[in-house]
């Protein structure tokens, strides 16, 4: 057995190396992009509720800001390591680049478990984090956001500390703020709509009329719900959704061949996207096992639940009719299954691109915050459509031209844009 343990940063570098090879990047460019530009590691002393002081370890890694201020979340995680943060900051660089928004990639974190901290202690931790970095983050430098175990509340504490130190209002420092406190409208819809914007463009490219398509959706959470809404609005028919059943501790697929009624289903759905099995039955839905969504005779599959859902085990059950998969979730397809999908020539809109609506909307939040003027929801979603559409076409064009798989194309184009910015700035 290989004794080298799993290292996320090494994996991110390996992924980059493939792109670098494809793009024939020179050694200097590779060295520049294989490692972060800047890393901050620091101590945050916090006075605990019992009067003692505890020292927490904080990080901020700015992988690359050639295309714009860094952008990336802050994680509170008990086993946070610098390698994890490095890997995630690199992924942020590519993620912003693939949708062509003028932002770089960053990530930050604190080694802690919020389950062992009171709210007051967490507040002090947030403020301490900002105090350590007050000169190295900012609306024009590096823009944090909520991430694992951090929420809008943490962002507001951080923003308040930053504004106190810098004597002014800088809502563009941070994203993920509540609406009314510098947040953007349309954030709820953004990811789900983004999936369908790219799907719509893909269908055009495949010369398929959306009105003639049927889709099967895995998951019924926020992303899936808005994706279904927009897809039905533009004429598609969703015949089944699958979701987790909290009571039975298993998942089910709900099918109606005449097409699901989204509004009716939403009425019997809990906050976590769990549909009430009995009521659905009463409404005429067939209740199938949780994996049934993948074997439906449809044109489109939209996995919008969890990672690792399409595996070597079940990829063979994908019906011959399926022409397109749009990854609404993060990493729903395992690498071995991905290979088979590529061989079967099913058109793949990779997660990287398909669910980039979220990060695009965060960019819009920052833009609005910086000018202190906030758009109506329609304006946000309209601009989102433009961004996603053009991002899709760049990727698909590359894929077509060079005859490569969509997932690779998306990755290569992202790296390419960043390398180009570094070159244009004369860094390498």
């Amino acid at each position, binding site marked *: *057995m*290989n*004794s*080298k*343990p*799993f290292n*996320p940063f090494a*994996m991110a570098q390996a992924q980059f190396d493939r792109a670098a090879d494809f793009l024939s990047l020179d050694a200097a460019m590779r060295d520049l992009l294989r490692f972060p530009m800047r890393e901050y590691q620091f101590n945050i002393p916090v006075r605990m*509720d019992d009067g003692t002081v505890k020292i927490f370890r904080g990080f901020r890694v700015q992988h690359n800001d050639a295309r714009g201020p860094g952008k990336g979340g802050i994680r509170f*995680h*008990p*086993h*946070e*390591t610098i390698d*994890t943060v490095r890997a995630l900051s690199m992924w942020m660089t590519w993620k912003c680049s693939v949708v062509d928004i003028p932002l770089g990639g960053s990530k930050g974190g604190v080694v802690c*478990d*919020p*389950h*062992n*901290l*009171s*709210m*007051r*202690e967490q507040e002090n931790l947030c403020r301490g984090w900002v105090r350590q970095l007050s000169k190295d983050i900012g609306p024009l430098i590096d823009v944090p956001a*909520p991430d*694992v*175990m951090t*929420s*809008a*509340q943490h962002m507001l504490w951080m923003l308040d500390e930053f504004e106190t130190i810098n004597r002014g209002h800088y809502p563009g420092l941070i994203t*993920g703020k*509540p*609406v009314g406190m510098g947040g953007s409208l349309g*954030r*709820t819809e953004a990811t789900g709509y983004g999936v369908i914007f790219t799907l719509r463009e893909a269908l055009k490219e495949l010369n398929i009329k959306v009105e003639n398509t049927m889709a099967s959706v895995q998951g019924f959470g926020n992303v899936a719900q808005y994706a279904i809404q927009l897809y039905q609005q533009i004429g598609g028919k969703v015949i089944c959704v699958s979701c987790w059943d909290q*009571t039975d*501790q*298993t998942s089910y697929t709900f099918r109606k061949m005449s097409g699901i009624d989204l509004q009716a289903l939403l009425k019997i759905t809990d*906050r*976590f996207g769990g549909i009430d099995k009995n009521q659905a039955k009463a409404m005429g839905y067939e209740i199938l*096992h*949780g*994996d049934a969504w993948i074997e439906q005779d449809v044109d489109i599959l939209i996995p919008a639940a969890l990672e*690792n859902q399409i595996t070597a085990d079940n990829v063979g059950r994908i019906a011959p009719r399926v022409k397109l998969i749009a990854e609404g979730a993060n990493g729903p397809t*395992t*690498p071995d299954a991905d290979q088979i999908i590529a061989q079967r020539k099913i058109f793949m809109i990779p997660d990287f691109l398909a669910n980039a609506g979220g990060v695009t909307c965060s960019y819009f939040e920052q833009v609005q915050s910086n000018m202190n003027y906030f758009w109506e929801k329609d304006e946000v979603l309209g601009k989102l459509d433009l961004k996603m559409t053009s991002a899709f076409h760049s990727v698909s064009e590359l894929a077509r031209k060079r005859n490569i798989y969509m997932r690779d194309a998306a990755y290569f184009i992202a790296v390419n844009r960043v390398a180009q910015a570094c070159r244009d700035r004369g860094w390498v």
Partner: protein
Amino acid sequence: MSDADKIKGRLLDSLQERAKELNCLYEVEEVLSNVNITLDDAFGGVIQAIPQGLQYPDSCQPRIEFEDTIYQPQNFAETRWVLSSSIVVQDKVVGSLKVYYTKELPASDVGPFLKEEAKLINTIADRLGHFVMYHRMKQLFHSLKKTGTEKDEENSQSWQVALNLLRQTDRNLFLNISHKMLNYLCWSGVEEAKRLQQYYNPDQRSEEDQVFADTNRPYQKRTLSFSSDFLSDETFKIAADHLSDNEIFTVIQKWIHEDRMSFLLETLNRNSSLAEVSEALRKYYRMSPGGVDLPTLSQRGARVSLVRRFFSDQLDYINIAKNHIEIVDFYLLMQNVIYGPESHGKLGGKAAGMFLAYQILKNAEVASGLLSNLKAPKTWYITSDVILYFMNYNNLQDVAEQKYKDINQVRIEYPHVIQSFKNAHFPPDIIQGLSVALDDFKDSPLIVRSSSLLEDRMGAAFSGKYKSLFLANQGPKEKRLEALTDAIAEVYASVFGPDPIEYRAERGLLDFHEEMGIMIQEVVGVKIGQYFMPAFAGVAFSRNEFRWSPRIKREDGLIRFVPGLGTRAVDRLSDDYPILVAPGQPGLRVNITCDEIIRYSPKKIDVIDLKDNSFETVEIKRFLKECGPLIPRVSQMISICDRDHIHQQVGPNIDFESDELVVAFEGLISRTPFVGQINTILKLLESKLNFPVDIEFASDGHDFYLLQCRPQSSADNAAAVPIPKDVSPERVIFSAKRFVSNGRVPDITHIVYVDPGHYGELPDRADLLAVGRAVSRLNQLLPKRQFILMGPGRWGSRGDIKLGVNVTYSDINNTAMLIEVARQKGNYLPDLSFGTHFFQDLVESHIRYLPLYPDDPGVIFNERFLKGSPSLLPEILPEFEYLSDTLRLMDIPRITNGMVLQVLMNADLDEAIGLLVPPKSVLDSGETKAAVSDSGTSEAWRWRMRMASYIASLIDPEKFGVKGFYVFGSTKNATAGPASDIDILIHFQGPDEKRCRLEYWLNGWSLCLDEMNYQRTGYRTGGLLDVHIITDDDIARKTSYAAKIGAITDAARALPIPNRKKNGD
């Protein structure tokens, strides 16, 4: 009108008359118990109160003659229809009470009067006599007090004034005090006093007075009676010469107090009935409404006797209670006690615990008024022996022998017992008491709770065995009274239920004389729309047995509470979650992320529906939409969720229609003194009572009500268990010395072990994920609650899953225990999760959690067993064979020759041990014996599974053509209840004749099991096996039940059958 109706009508009439009389008596009591009332006002008030107690109030005119004064209504005219009774004070007639009718009315028992009315007038006259005496005493006392505060010189006058007053008002006391003064002077060595003493009491003569010894003649008696005044005068003359005025005054005052105590003590020492005790208390209270300011020995004696009479014989209890409960408290308590004639009953364990706890808290001096809004709900008590009175009255004495019957017999007869209790009648005096109680409660909803003598003795261990019933208490009084008596009868019947009797039999408590007291409590709460409910209610423990963070200490305690009635907080819930807070560390929440807070918030609420007169469970979502704005302090209860931002509304404008609302009680926890209050209460009670406590509480949104207090000892396998010390090390699998909770996890047959070393070295994320998937598969395959999961770091990690296996709750929900292993890496010790990823799920489903630190000194971590024993993984899940270094599955009985693993945990010692022991029960031997101890639904599936395995093991595959035997449905899923059938799937191949034989054979089992189940539970279904027979064809085509075999969800579980000797048929 039928005869029965006539009788009923007459009964009703007479009941109404009794109620009128009682009301009259209560009004008189109310007038006379007014401490500051003058004689004139008192008599005036009584005159007004009397007419309503008689049959013809409009024609009634009372009249009181007292000394030289006459009290009567205006336009009074004497007639010949009169009832009369004398007012007597200290055996002297001082006046009279008369009641006249102004005109002739139908003749009855005593002229136009009922005999009950005569009794009523006598009673009132008697009360008036007491009142007059009390009034005089009060004046005397008042004068004593007043002078006591003045200067010494003036005391000379004042003690003489007091003494004179005493001489006139209470001659016995006066003589008594003179006597005491004489003794006092003698002991002080005053010679004159000694001489007087000998004269007064020749029996106590000294040697030089032997001259009197022979002259023992009647003369002595004459001295006593004749010269008592003289003696007193002499005594006090001597006293005045030898003692200071101040001293005399002080001792007189003290003796007066002691005297008042003496009749109470005497009553208590006589083993008098409760009625007598009550009378003595009343008298005592009347004389000193403000309580007694002298803490004397006799007062302590009286308190001890009262505690023993009302509450408990237990020395531990008495020792504490005597310091906290005043005699006056008993007087006030007695006002709300219902008891039978000649009652010698107690109030029972629950009442004792509650009353003492409340007194402790009430009397405690707590800074900054933290407990100023602490209250106890209005409560009426029925003494424990009323159940016997009730049974005797209805000739139900035979039922008392129920407990000696065979337990199956008890089970079968229990429904009948309930019905006969419910159809029985309460004695009229108890009905009267209940009627008064209902008048006191008005139409507030009530809860009828058991308060038995055994609950007292056994503490919490016995709680929950008897019933508590909610009553909406709405509608006309007859209906309410009927519902109340019905509920009491049902609670009474629960004494004879199979569960408590079985519990008692197991512990040798059958011969304990069990009696059942009843507490009728007002339900704390407010009316919200058509519902009635507390703003919140729950339980709190002074020791925390479910710590979700290493920063929480056991002493930090635990609060479990919910909106609405506390029923949902008291019991573990399968489909909902209460709010958990550690009062010592209120900042450390179980749920941190937005998703956690929402997922683990209460979704349902228990309320009393006043419209339907019923107890109901309502969805909170619906409830908030309907009644949100009416809930008191609703903003303390709910938070608003806006995507990932959970916040509290500052103003009152919550949008109950469209906002996403979460019941998190964030406002209550972080912005009110609530948590501090509970913390103070728990700490205070634990320190005064000397044991960890468990309280129930409720709040109407303004005040905090204590509902119950008892020792915290946990039922359901969660008590501290002794940790054996002299175990041979090879029998120990692991031991722990940190963050241990209490409990015992028995009969573990399988260990799923994820090796921390190998797991950390897995090169690929896909491999790490595969470990989680394999665990999930094992969770489905292994017998529920008979295996444990042991793994590195943090179970349920996401993202960075090197820290721990990536599972969700559904992947581990069948385990009995979740163990996290923290192995030292260099000088770094990884943090454990303490189960936080699914903490509340673990709590609600009784899955125990234990962290292990193998590198700590002095602990055992048996790596030889865990890494060296043969693993079944490749056999059971061949597709995961490549993980066999990392993931191991040990079949303990197979490895150890039939032993099982038992985990013992003791939080007091902070120690736990997992050791191999012989199994408790084996299938073939003593099955029926084991069956008896299995009770409750949680055990129903276990028994069914055992029986199914047993049948499978007996089947003759050749004779019956059986190729496979499967169990599915409720038995396999461990959800079977006492009435569930056993779903069996049989893979059959062979000729019809064999099939016939098989069905015949199974049918026999089915009937036999049904009978056994009936004996166990009292449920009969006419056949317990639900057999589905499938063939090779079915399996090939996956038709009907065949789909269950190897299904992805809810697959049927194969049970081993004996090997076939040759293949095929």
